[in-house]
């Protein structure tokens, strides 16, 4: 059974001119197509990433899957249940955590607040309390267990809400930009926890949205790009990167090795294209090498050593998901990517 399946999912927002709710801007288009025919399959056990810039339609897709929003057309199923006709079955199997989330009652303690959430899912108190304490421990909030929420920092409150997602024991954990606004170490703790959580039981799956490409790269088995409401390339991070280029780039720096091309030391190695530039002032030569096969780097190094050239630095430069996104859309991922 698939964790998530969508077919031709489309959502249009109409701007309401005289609605009771929301702003009454008269500018801008009367309609915004937030999602344009999304087809997506997330398998059981998979951690799936939706990567796209702000306004791409990530939250819209998430809200539809979490039954907070109905699609204009198309279908979506979570663990085989239709989000429109079987919302209760869907809600039993999901937990949604949104980045920057500050939800909670200031007067409750962290433990009380987390316990209340578990009650909404009908989990037995006796089983839940030890898990709450363990989760607080691993997220470094153990000493805050009996603090009132009003005394927590925004980061601590957000961590508490991430903990909620794990505690509810969903089959599908839905994370909408979960590390948004967290400091580096808290963000790392969240990523580690997600990875471990999904591995603990085979039926668990994670759908995660982010506009941080490293997060998607590090965490996700598969990634789909989303741009202006459309789902673009969808594959494993490695396969996506291979799409931009099947060659690997190396940057190599040596002590100045004579002539502009290092005396032609690197000429004629099969599958290697080298360009070199020498900086006489610094006494260095810099090579950019494009390799059809990564293994060819060994031959490069032995030729330079044999020629008596000292290698100062060598690093491989793989395409990032950002490069792939750029190639697919002509646009970057925006800040922080």
């Amino acid at each position, binding site marked *: 059974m698939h964790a998530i399946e969508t077919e031709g999912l489309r959502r249009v927002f109409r701007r309401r001119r005289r609605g*009771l709710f929301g702003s009454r801007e008269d500018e801008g288009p009367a309609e915004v197509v937030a999602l344009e025919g999304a087809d997506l399959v997330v398998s059981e056990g998979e951690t799936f990433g939706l990567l796209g810039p702000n306004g791409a339609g990530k939250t*819209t897709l998430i809200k539809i899957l*979490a039954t*907070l929003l109905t699609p204009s057309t198309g279908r979506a199923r979570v663990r085989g249940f239709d989000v429109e006709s079987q919302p209760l079955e869907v809600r039993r199997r999901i937990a949604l955590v949104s980045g920057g989330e500050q939800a909670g*009652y200031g007067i409750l303690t962290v433990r009380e607040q987390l316990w209340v959430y578990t009650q909404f899912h009908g989990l037995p108190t006796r089983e839940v309390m030890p898990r709450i304490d363990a989760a607080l421990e691993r997220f470094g909030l153990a000493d805050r267990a009996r603090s009132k929420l009003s005394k927590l920092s925004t980061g601590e409150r957000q961590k508490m809400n991430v903990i909620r997602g794990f505690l509810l024991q969903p089959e599908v954990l839905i994370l909408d930009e979960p590390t948004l606004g967290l400091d580096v170490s808290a963000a790392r703790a969240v990523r580690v926890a997600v990875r471990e959580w999904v591995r603990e039981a085979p039926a668990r799956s994670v759908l995660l949205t982010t506009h941080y490409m490293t997060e998607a790269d590090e965490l996700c088995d598969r990634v789909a790009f989303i741009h202006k409401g459309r789902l673009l390339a969808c594959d494993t991070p490695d396969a996506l990167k291979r799409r931009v280029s099947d060659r690997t780039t190396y940057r190599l720096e040596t002590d100045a090795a004579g002539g502009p091309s290092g005396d032609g030391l690197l000429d004629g190695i099969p599958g290697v294209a080298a360009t070199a530039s020498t900086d006489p002032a610094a006494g260095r030569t810099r090579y950019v090498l494009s390799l059809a096969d990564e293994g060819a780097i060994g031959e490069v190094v032995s030729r330079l050593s044999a020629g008596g050239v000292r290698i100062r630095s060598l690093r491989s430069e793989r395409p990032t998901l950002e490069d792939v996104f750029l190639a697919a859309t002509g646009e970057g991922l925006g800040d922080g990517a």
Partner: protein
Amino acid sequence: MIGVARAARSFRSAAWLGWSVDTNWADPVTIGTLLVVRPLAATMLLVLIFEVARGTGSADPRFAHLYVGTAFYTILGATLHAISFVVMDDRERYETIRVVATSPVPLAAYVAGRGLSSLVNSCVGAGVILAFGSLALGLPLRPAGLLSPLFLAGFGLGVASAVGLAIGLAGVHLVTARHHYLLGESVAGVLYLLSGAIFPIEALPFGADRLARLLPFTYWLEALRRPLVPEASACSPTLAAISDATLLAILAVSSAALGAGGLALFRACERSARRRGILDARTDH
């Protein structure tokens, strides 16, 4: 059956939550103010106005009519406000409505449970007002009336009607922005005038008495006054002419109708909010 059990469990958790969140038990001064001082202060103001306007004492049945009516009206007012306001509070202030709406909890049961503590507090407040009236103002209250079937059944059915209406108003809050937060209080204010809490309905101007006769809360207050202060009930000949059994029948029908209607309105608004994606949307400024 599973649905009922789930609703009951959700109601319980939500009631615990409301209890802990809306009543600061750690602070006796706040509790005292909430349960005793506030309801008494509001009632005293009315007593003063009555005394000044009439120059008569608390033996006047019209005083008892007003006093008892106002005491019980506070329960209606608190219920309408508290239950409907849960939606605003949990969406705009605590931001927890998204968590509830994506959990298997029936939202209407949650909202009612979360407002329960305010309802109970207002009942305590009404009791304090009545005790004060009886002990300090010489209100001719018959305590035995509290145990009469008319009072007990009438009280329960009236509260059920109020909860049904309040759930409907909570539904309206699901699709309206923050600045409509006074909805519950506005409706309660209109009902205060129209359901004969202050004036006997015969005294209402512009044919408003015909409206009053359509409101279940008019019969509710009558069903509470009659066993407690029979003299006060006599202030309104129209209502005094209705038998106990008829009063209860009217209240039984109204609580069923308002319960079903309120729930239907709530569900329609919930569907609409999910369709528009505004269920968890904080009002932006």
